[in-house]
Structures are given as C-alpha cells and as structure tokens.
C-alpha cells in the first residue's frame, strides 16, 4: 500500500490550518479556564465584599425600618464608588419587602446617605443592570424629577426595563401612571403577569378600578382576557357589575369564559343560565365553577343537568359545585348520585364526593 503513494501526500495548507486551529483551541482553552478561575475568585471576593457591606449596613437599614432615628450620612463618604451601587441594591432589597411607615424611614435614610444622587448617576450610565437598579430606586424614592427619563423607558423593547419603569412610575405617582400604563397592559402580552399584578396592587383598587374597567370595555377579546386576569387588583363590586353587563353584550367564547372565571360575587340567574348551555364547553365549565362559588339554592337546577354534559371538565366542575352547595349534605348527595341514570354523572359525583371527603 505504501508504495502507491508519495510520502507524505498531505497538503501543507491543511496542516497549517489545522495547526493554527490547535494553537487557537489551546490558547482559548487556557484563556477560558483562567477566565473561569478569575470569575470564581471574583465571585468569592464579591461575596466577601458584600458580606462586609451587609454586616455594616444591614443593621442600619433594618434599624431604619423600625425607627427614623439615625445619622449615618458620613459613612457613605468612606464607601468606594463601586460599593455605593451595592449599597443602593441592598437598600432596594429591603425597600421591596417593607410596607407601611417603614417606607418613609427608609426613604429618609436614603436621602441622608445621598442614594438619590447615586441612583440618578446610575440612571444615565451605560450598564443595563445599573440602569434597572436606578429605575427601581428612583421609583422607591418617588423622584418626580426623573419622571420623564423613566417614562421614556415604558416603550423600551426590553421587557424587564419597560415593566420596571412602569412599576417605578406607579411608585412616583400612581394616579398619573395607571392612566398611562393600563392601555399598555392589554397591548403588551409580553409583560409578565406577576409584575403587572404587582404594580396594580401597588396602586390599589381605588386607582386601578376605573382605568381597568375602561380598558376592558374598549379592548378586543384577547386584550380584554388579559386585562381580566387583574380583576383582583380592582374593586370587586365595580368589576362584577361591568362583567355582568359585558356578559350580555359580548359573545366571544374566550372572553365569556375569562369573564366568568374572574367573577367573585354573584351574577343574575338568567345571565348564568344562558351561559351554562353555551355551545363552547369551556364557557359551560366556567359557568359551573361560578355556580359552585355562588352556592345559591336556585342554581341547583342549572347544575344538575351539567352532570351529564358531554365534556368531562363540565361534569367535573358541576359535580364539584354541587358538593360545595351548603344546603346539600352527604345523604342528599348520595341520593342525588343514586338517582342519576347517566353512569358518567354517577362516576363524576363519586369522584367529587371522594375528593371532598364525603365518601
């Protein structure tokens, strides 16, 4: 075999390319490992630095949540520039979790420490992470002067930045902010539900109810469904009356189901009766659910036929609703189950009763 080939036949070019690749791989591997090691060391140093900062500042910040009696402004002067952002982060962490009068004590502490200046400076820096921290802090500090800078960020493509800006605006001026933000809640499905819920709860039902009702009325089905998820952030009575009205004037099944799911109070019997026989099974299911929550004697006659519904979920929710009715005891439920001709209705009642501990 050897005699058939010149020795060696490999091209110089491929050898050179491969050698270069080996050199690059070896070099990069070394750099990467050193970088990983450097990251580990940096993490350890950062953790130590943070631990020191926390040891020094947590008692002061925690103390400020209890009493506004402190004088630590001079301490900030000895902090390095980098540590000031860390302190601001720690302050924000505390501020996120405290409620009530501790808010103002913490804000007073921040004022004394000059954290507002630190936040404003970070707001105009290039680091996204620091900008987010600054927006959060300026919101907590209620900094009116930064309103315009933060408002611009509402339209930012980055979801985290835009929603953080929205929350900050609510902190600064909830009334003004909710009016601007509510239409965006329906239109920006990418805004995290948990964060939107947080900002609406922050504003409170008195501020949220009006704009939320208006936004739901004007929204298309998809947007309205999204907005209905925040029912609990608004006044229950106002929302229920709006929903009762919309349930008779709108017909999109997805909207009807979302609306029924949201209601916490009671709806007129004739409204719910019509929806319990709706052609979309998920509307019937939500109607059953609602009837279970209402627990009214007159609803029983609507619920019983649903035990034989073609869709399992409707039967299941109807059975659960029936077992929850306060006027039906275990014996009455057993009688009801035994008199069902439909085996599916019997099975589902067995299951619901077992789940409720009635069997």
């Amino acid at each position, binding site marked *: *075999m050897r005699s058939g080939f010149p020795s060696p036949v490999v091209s110089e070019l491929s050898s050179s390319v491969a050698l270069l690749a080996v050199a690059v791989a070896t070099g990069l591997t070394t750099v990467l490992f050193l970088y990983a090691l450097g990251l580990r060391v940096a993490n350890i140093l950062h953790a130590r630095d943070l631990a020191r900062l926390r040891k020094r500042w947590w008692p002061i910040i925690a103390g400020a949540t209890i009493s506004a009696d402190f004088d630590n402004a001079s301490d900030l002067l000895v902090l390095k520039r980098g540590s000031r952002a860390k302190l601001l982060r720690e302050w924000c962490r505390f501020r996120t979790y405290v409620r009530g009068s501790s808010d103002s004590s913490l804000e007073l502490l921040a004022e004394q420490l000059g954290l507002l200046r630190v936040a404003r400076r970070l707001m105009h820096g290039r680091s996204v992470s620091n900008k987010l921290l600054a927006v959060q802090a300026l919101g907590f500090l209620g900094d009116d002067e930064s309103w315009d800078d933060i408002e611009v960020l509402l339209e930012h493509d980055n979801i985290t930045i835009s929603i953080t800006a929205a929350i900050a605006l609510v902190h600064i001026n909830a009334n003004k902010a909710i009016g601007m933000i509510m239409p965006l809640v329906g239109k920006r499905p990418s805004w995290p539900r*948990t964060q939107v819920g947080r900002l609406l709860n922050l504003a409170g039902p008195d501020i949220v109810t009006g704009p939320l009702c208006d936004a739901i009325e004007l929204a298309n089905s998809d947007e309205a469904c999204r907005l209905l998820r925040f029912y*609990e952030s608004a006044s229950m009575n106002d929302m229920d009356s709006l929903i009762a009205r919309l349930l008779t004037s709108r017909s999109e099944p997805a909207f009807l189901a979302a609306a029924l799911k949201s209601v916490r109070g009671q709806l007129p019997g004739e409204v719910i009766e019509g929806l319990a026989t709706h052609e979309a099974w998920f509307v019937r299911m939500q109607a059953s659910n609602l009837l279970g929550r209402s627990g009214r004697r007159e609803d029983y006659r609507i619920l019983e036929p649903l035990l034989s519904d073609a869709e399992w979920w409707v039967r299941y929710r109807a059975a659960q609703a029936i077992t929850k009715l306060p006027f039906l005891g275990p014996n009455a439920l057993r009688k009801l189950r035994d008199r069902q001709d439909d085996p599916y209705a019997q099975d589902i009642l067995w299951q619901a009763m077992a789940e409720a501990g009635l069997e």
Partner: protein
Amino acid sequence: MAGDGRGGARMRPTAFLQIAEWLFFGYFILIYFVYALLNVFAVFRIRRYLQVAELTAADNVFSSLDLPVSVIVPAYNESDSIITSTRAMLQVEYPDYEVIVVNDGSSDDTLQKLIDAFNLRPFPEAYRQRVPCKKVRGVYKSALFPTLRVVDKENGGSKADALNAGINVCRYPIFCAVDADSILQPDSLRRAVRPFLEEPNTVATGGTVRIANGCVVRGGFLEKVGLPSNFLARVQVIEYLRAFLYGRMGWSQMNAVLIISGAFGVFDKEAVVRVGGYNAEAIGEDMELVLRLHRHFCESGRDYEITFVPDPICWTDAPEDLNTLGKQRIRWQHGLGQSLRLHKDLLFRRNSGAVGWLAIPFFYIFELFGPVVEIAGYIFMTIAGLSGWISWETTGIFFCLAIGLGVMLSTSALVLEEMSFSVYPRVRDLFKLFGVAILENFGYRQITLVWRIRGLVGWLRGKTPEWGEMKRSSSLTEP
C-alpha cells in the same frame, strides 16, 4: 505509458486523501464553530435571564397569578428511589400543585412501598382517556398528602405510556413530567412555570438537569451539592453542563429547542393533548413530543414558544458503570434517529424557522451522523499515519485538534457555569472538572462514539434497544 499509468493511479488516491483530510479537518472545525456560536447565544440568553431573575426575585411572594401544575412521575420498578423522589415532589415550593405517580405495572414492590409510605386509599376516579395508554387498574389517593394520587396501570412497555396515563388523570392546565429517579429543587416549579406566565404563547419549558451523584440527599431534600467520586459520573457532569448550559440555552435563543429532557419538562396540557400525547412507540419520547409540538404549531401557523430555563432545578441519578451508560447512550442515539425520521418533513420546511432550517440539519449532521464522521476520521488518520500516506505530524495535529477543541468547549461550559450558577462550591471542584474535561477525551469520548454508532446502526436496522436494569448510585436511595 507505464509511467503515465502509475502517475494516473497516484493522482487519484492523492486527490482522495486530500479531500478526506480536508473533510475531516473541516468537519471538526465546523462542528466546534457551530458549538461556539451556540455558546455565544447562550451567554446572551443566560445574562438576560439572570438580570430578570434578580429583579423579579421579589415576585416570589406574589403567587395569586401562578398557574396550578400537575407533576407526573412515571415509575417502573423504582422501588429503591420512589419514596425519596415522591417526598421531594411533595416538598416543592409552589402554591397550587398535585403530584401524580404512575406505577407502570412494576414487577417489584414500587406500588406497595407507595401505599405504605403515603397511606394510599383507593379513589373512585372518573377516569377519562384523552390520550392513548394501557388500561388503568386503579387510582389511589394519599390520606396523608391530599395532593398526591397514584395511578396503577398495566405495563405499557414505555415511559410514554405511563406519562399519557398521568396526563389523562391530571387536573391542571400545566403538567410537569419528572423522572422517578430525579429530585427537584424546592423552587423548581416556580422557575419552570415562570415562562408560561411571562409569555402566554409558551407551550413547553425545559429545565436544566444536573447530576445527583455525589450530592447528599435527605428526606427528599438536596442537602449538599458535591462532585461524584466515580469517574464516569463526573464526566457526565461535564456532559450535562455542555448539553444544558449552551446546547439548549443556545437553541432556546432561536426558539429551536428540540429536546426537553424526560427528566424534567413542563408542558401546556392542552397543546400536548392536541398533538396526541406522548408517542408510546418512540424510544426518545421526550424529543419526539417536542418535535411534534414544533410541527403542529408550524402547520397551524400559530405563534408559540418552547423555552428553556438555565437554573439547576432537577437532579438526576447518572449511571456509574459502562454497561448501563452504554445502554443509555445507545437508546438516546436510537431515539434521536427515530424522532428525526418521524418528523423529517420539518426539515427545510418553508415556515419552520430556525427549527427546520438550523436545528434539525444540525442534529442530522452533527448529532446523528457526527459520530460516524468522527470515528471515520480517527480511523482514517490512524491508518494514513501508519501507512505513511500522511506525515505523523499531521496525524498528531489531527488528534490534538480533536482533543483541543473538545477541551475548549467543555471549558467554555465551565465558564458559563461560573458566570451563572457556580453550583459546585469549592475552587478545587473547578480544577477537578477541568481535569475531567481533558481526561474525557482519552477513551471516554471514543467509547461514547462507539455506543452512539451502535445506536445509529440499531435504529437503521430497526432493532429495538434494550433498557436493561439501571444500577443506582446511593444518592437517591433511602438510608
């Protein structure tokens, strides 16, 4: 003439050698270039994820908007670990969830252990079959934990069948499929469900799986993270880092995740029911389902997201002996081939996006047939070196290249790990992992290639791969 004839004969093999040589060098450089690109995508994705995670940490106290989740745990002869893993599932921090353990006709005492440990009682379930599975013999409910139900069914011969039974029984709109030999981090569900809350089009989310060997688990809790002492398990730590941190995170950036590990995946139940549930005939049922979801949504033209969360949220028991590991890898390769073939029409499909135009071709070229090219490269270069067709320097360079690029990628996974979660706490762990990243290239990687080729051949010949008995490490076994 004779001279001409010899010269002509000489030219052809020379050209052949040069083409082969370029092919193998080119292949190695290309595959690692693509992996490096995925790595870059993963860096961006993880950085963004961590930024958001830091800011939304406070949302953990806000739970009224969380979606309820059904955790489905298929179990077949899992007598050793089922109690530990079920306890772990029951201790997950989540406001509203249920746990459904599916005993897939185990021939050992899995069911009896569950009955005894959790005080199970027969439950009159109004069972309805939405996706196909073998007959359900009964449903039990725990008298101790109201959120725990156990489904006892006839053996369906596959995990997919057991998962389908779980889907038929589960109540909630989101389900999480978890292997019975895995344990979850207490905050795993909250993290994995978050994409469903933040992006309403999300239909599936994968979580990062880590190796439990070497960790201390007590009463279902992960008490201490540690590296396994067994070399094979330690190599798998590196493999999992590579696969999850930049493999899947990189594809996630393009909405082209093709695999959500069977060990931990969260799905929109209705989407899964709509596509017919898990395919009981598929060897890699996890990948097959994800491909079917991609296909369904591509066909329907609806927006959807299949995402990945990088947090270490699920810890699984890795094989510590060659026999079990080999069977696992043969099965995985077989499953890969089968899944890709079943959904071959996604390849270069007009509206299939990054899935059909990037991810599937990548999986065909580098994951499915890659081992053949790599092994052929080793064999060719060795023969060519021995025969003097190419110089020893070139042969040496080739092997250095293969090893060097392999070590480089593993090291970049270590960098990602340090940038993000730094799960292994001691500095010496980092050195140990780097050592493993080098050592795995001498023997382990080649054995893996052989297993993968066996899986590929088995799939091409239509042979069903063996499961065999999984030998457990002591990590998940109750003391």
